[in-house]
């Protein structure tokens, strides 16, 4: 029976929007915004329907579509989702929609081109998550680079070109080796079975020699590690985030980083089980380093966006830690962290965007005491800050605890070291919250009945260069208006999801459970 190709429709409806905008040469800005909204909205609605229709009680791929494409090379157009990719598809469509709304006012320059790029990006990301053919996957994987680089490079801030080029070249260099890996895998499988195919599900059936696995794993790993990004491949991230426009950061943090984690889950683990076992300890070490390192970096950043960027390095460390703990808790945890990071960090970037819209700077030193004149903003910010520092009852905790528990079970030291981050996370997050939302605006006299002297705790490290002189040429934070309804509109769904996943994560966990178990079975060899 021929079923409705829902995945294709989800994936290409943004593309359709982009094409329409492209053909409509002189579309006015409003029209462009609305078309983008509709396109992403359709994609979002359908993905919601897909998630509802998804049957969590079967581990196999669902909503699959297959067309022969280059049969002579074993290349076919294969789509499908399982418990790993389905939630990520949902996340992608949601964040795309939010990005469209978030760009509504801030983007005033080349609006039409902007939305074309954004929609192309959406199609690329969705394609990455739904394609089950390595060739197709690689195509989408690379497609994502171009619009992202454009968004950073055209609509970014001061140092955007450097950031865009760095992002593009770094991630491209990472993924090119994967191409060799893919072809090598194809050839290896062909020599074993005489079948030419790039079908992931088929390729997982083959058993490859340890040496081959070792190298192929590395080829794939590099691409994904740079995307995640794992320490020490992370340095493109702060630059990219700082320069990207708000929506760009949202997509970058919310979805692009997940492509790395997804890659590990979908390819490295099932394809190269032995190699995974061999590499896991090393990768766990890197993950733990990333967790702590990211937190320490975030501790001393003066640029709000850089801080959030480093914090997401730390959070993605949980993902890799969970994945390569190679146990149920770890993998489930990694998945939940990916989702939660998608909600929380994206929201934090929106928060920064709200400030940037008003102050046109991201220097922390320029802000202070916002909670008085922007109470709603402060509430949202506080909420997401707490979520980001892993407060129980919010999505962050569920994932991080599971990931850490997984890590702890496999590698005690990793669990112990990783857990220390709860202290640092609280420290940097509350510190930045205090700097931005609490106390007083820079230059404002202290509260008359503030018993400064009674504070036994000596004050913060004074802001490093650049921080100090910002106040002069930036508007007084006391004059900022509170969040507009549109900004609130972008933040509220994320807040609700964060709360939901934190309080009642069961549906999500059930959604991913079987697929995760299947992957584990593939890695550890025992059947489920």
């Amino acid at each position: 029976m021929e079923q409705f190709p829902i995945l294709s429709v989800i994936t290409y409806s943004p593309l359709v929007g982009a094409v329409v905008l492209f053909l409509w040469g002189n579309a006015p800005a409003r029209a462009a915004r609305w078309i983008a909204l509709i396109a992403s909205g359709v994609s979002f609605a359908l993905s919601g329907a897909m998630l509802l229709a998804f049957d969590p009680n079967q581990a196999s791929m669902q909503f699959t579509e297959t067309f022969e494409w280059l049969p002579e090379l074993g290349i076919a157009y294969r789509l499908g989702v399982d418990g790993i990719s389905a939630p990520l598809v949902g996340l992608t469509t949601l964040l795309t929609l939010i990005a469209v709304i978030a760009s509504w006012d801030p983007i005033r320059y080349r609006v039409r081109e902007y939305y074309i790029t954004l929609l192309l990006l959406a199609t690329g990301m969705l394609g990455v998550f739904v394609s089950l053919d390595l060739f197709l996957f690689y195509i989408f994987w690379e497609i994502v680079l171009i619009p992202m680089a454009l968004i950073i490079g055209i609509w970014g801030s001061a140092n955007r070109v450097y950031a865009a080029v760095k992002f593009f070249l770094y991630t491209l260099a990472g993924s090119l080796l994967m191409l060799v890996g893919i072809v090598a895998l194809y050839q290896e499988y062909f020599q074993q079975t005489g079948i030419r195919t790039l079908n992931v599900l088929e390729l997982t059936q083959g058993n490859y020699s340890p040496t081959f696995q070792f190298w192929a794993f590395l080829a794939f790993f590099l691409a994904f590690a740079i995307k995640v990004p794992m320490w020490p491949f992370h340095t493109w991230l702060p630059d990219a985030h700082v320069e990207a426009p708000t929506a760009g950061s949202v997509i970058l943090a919310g979805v692009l980083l997940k492509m790395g984690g997804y890659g590990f889950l979908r390819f490295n683990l099932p394809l190269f089980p032995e190699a995974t076992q061999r590499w896991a300890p090393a990768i766990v070490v890197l993950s733990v380093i990333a967790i702590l390192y990211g937190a320490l970096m975030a501790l001393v950043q003066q640029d709000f966006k850089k801080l959030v960027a480093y914090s997401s390095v730390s959070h993605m460390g949980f993902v890799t830690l969970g994945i390569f703990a190679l146990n149920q808790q770890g993998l489930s945890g990694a998945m939940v962290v990916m989702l939660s990071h998608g909600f929380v960090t994206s929201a934090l970037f929106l928060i920064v965007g709200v400030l940037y819209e008003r102050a046109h700077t991201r220097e922390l030193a320029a802000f202070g005491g916002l909670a008085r004149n922007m109470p709603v903003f402060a509430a949202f910010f506080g909420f997401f800050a707490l979520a980001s520092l892993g407060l129980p009852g919010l999505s962050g905790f569920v994932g991080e605890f599971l990931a850490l528990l997984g890590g702890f079970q496999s590698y005690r030291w990793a669990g112990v070291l990783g857990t220390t981050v709860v202290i640092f996370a609280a420290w940097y997050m509350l510190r930045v919250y205090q700097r931005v939302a609490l106390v007083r605006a820079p230059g404002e006299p202290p509260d008359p009945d503030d018993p400064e002297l009674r504070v036994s705790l000596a004050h913060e490290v004074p802001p490093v260069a650049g921080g100090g002189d910002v106040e002069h040429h930036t508007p007084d934070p006391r004059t900022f208006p509170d969040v507009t309804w549109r900004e609130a509109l972008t933040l509220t769904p994320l807040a609700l999801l964060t709360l939901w996943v934190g309080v009642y994560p069961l549906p999500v966990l059930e959604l991913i459970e079987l697929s995760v178990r299947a992957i584990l079975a593939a890695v550890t060899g025992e059947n489920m």
Partner: protein
Amino acid sequence: MPLRLVAPEWSLLVPPLIVLGTIVLLLAIDAVSERTARRFALPLALAGQLLALGSLASIDWGQGATTFGVSYRADWFALVVSLIALVAGILSVLVSAGYTESGLEPGVGLAEYLALLLFSVLGTMVVGAAGDFLVLLLGLEMSAVAVYALTAFARRRLTSVEGALKYFLLGAFASAILIYGMAWIYGLTGSIKLSDIAYTLRTVVIPGQPVDPALLLALLLLAVGLGFKIAAVPFHMWTPDAYQGAPTPVSAYMSVVPKVAGFAAVARILVQGLQPLSDQWAGLLALLALVTMVYGNVVAIAQRDLKRMLGYSAIGHTGYMLAGLAAFTTGLAGDRSVGSVLFYLFAYTFMNIGAFGVIAWLQERGLGTTLDDVAGLAGRAPLAALTMAIFMLSLMGMPPLLGFYAKYYVILALIEAGQLWLAVAIVVMSAVSASFYLRVITQMYFQEPGGTWRPVRTPLLGLGLAVMAAATLALGLVSGPILELAQRWPAALT
């Protein structure tokens, strides 16, 4: 005894004859009157080539029939080469449209220009169909000599002449070496017919046994001569100068068609004629491929003149294609080496002529050819910028553009041949190349426009660019049949 004249199989010769006819017509109307020539030459050239293209269908290439003895072969290989040559010819004519309307000085016939261009196309087709050294050499020279002249076509610009002169001198020098190599092969095998050479060599060369040094010397001389034609390092030196010096449409043309001729010659000579020596030359090609792709891509980074940059990038691509040839293993059905190269040439035709085409388009509008001239193009002419971006990304090998498929098939060929290291080299070099292709995009999209801008209408050029952009975008997705066609080469060459 009486002399019996054997008529050749004219039917096999239809496509080249049509091209030849077009050339004759062009020269004729030019002789008749300058004005009519100016009016009709361009349509005529296009029509002629299109006709030739269509006539390709009239021949059953499957049976690999030959005529003039075995000197002219109508096999799959010939088909693909003629196909690429004609397509490249048509696109080049389109690209030349603007230039021939404005750029040519009075007194220099447009007809001559097109005639020369078609001559070189004809030569390339002949190389593709050559069955012995003689025909092959004639074809090669035909395609080369015409381009020497074309390079110098902007006579008033010294750089044009300089480029032409360098190209010509070194070209002649290289041909001498090439012919010397041919002479030795002839002497050692007693034949200039590729098939006979292969046959004789099979008896001479025993795998594992040391080969007659004279044979090796001959092989080397051939390699040098051909290496020059395809601009392989270290025989590439003419390339950047010629590309930069020549009129842009000519650069566009010469960046592709002579290369096609060169690779066709390499395939005919090495793969078909010297196949028994494959153990000797495959490694050699691998070495050349490595050096070539590294040098071309690295040095391109240091360029600010787009035409020169594309010149070096062309060297880089030669490296990729050589790698594809180096993947030659058995010459049996599974062997993708030559097929991948043919497909690469096909893809390369669109993206490279396209890239030069955009530069020509810019020159029409009074801009120069440096990176600064494309600055802010996206704001000024979004479509042009988009087209250029497409070509750049395709040259970079970004999916889903044509260039990616080409690269993919080469890598596939290499890995199937077990030459992983070359595949790795290719992807590493792609990463390097990305940096300079990306710089063009950065200039176009991330910078503000500068320089003077003279809006003019160039319909044909625009059409050509549109076609090439569309092809670069879409052909990859349906690359199956083309690849399949290119993949029939073993039937022809072994």
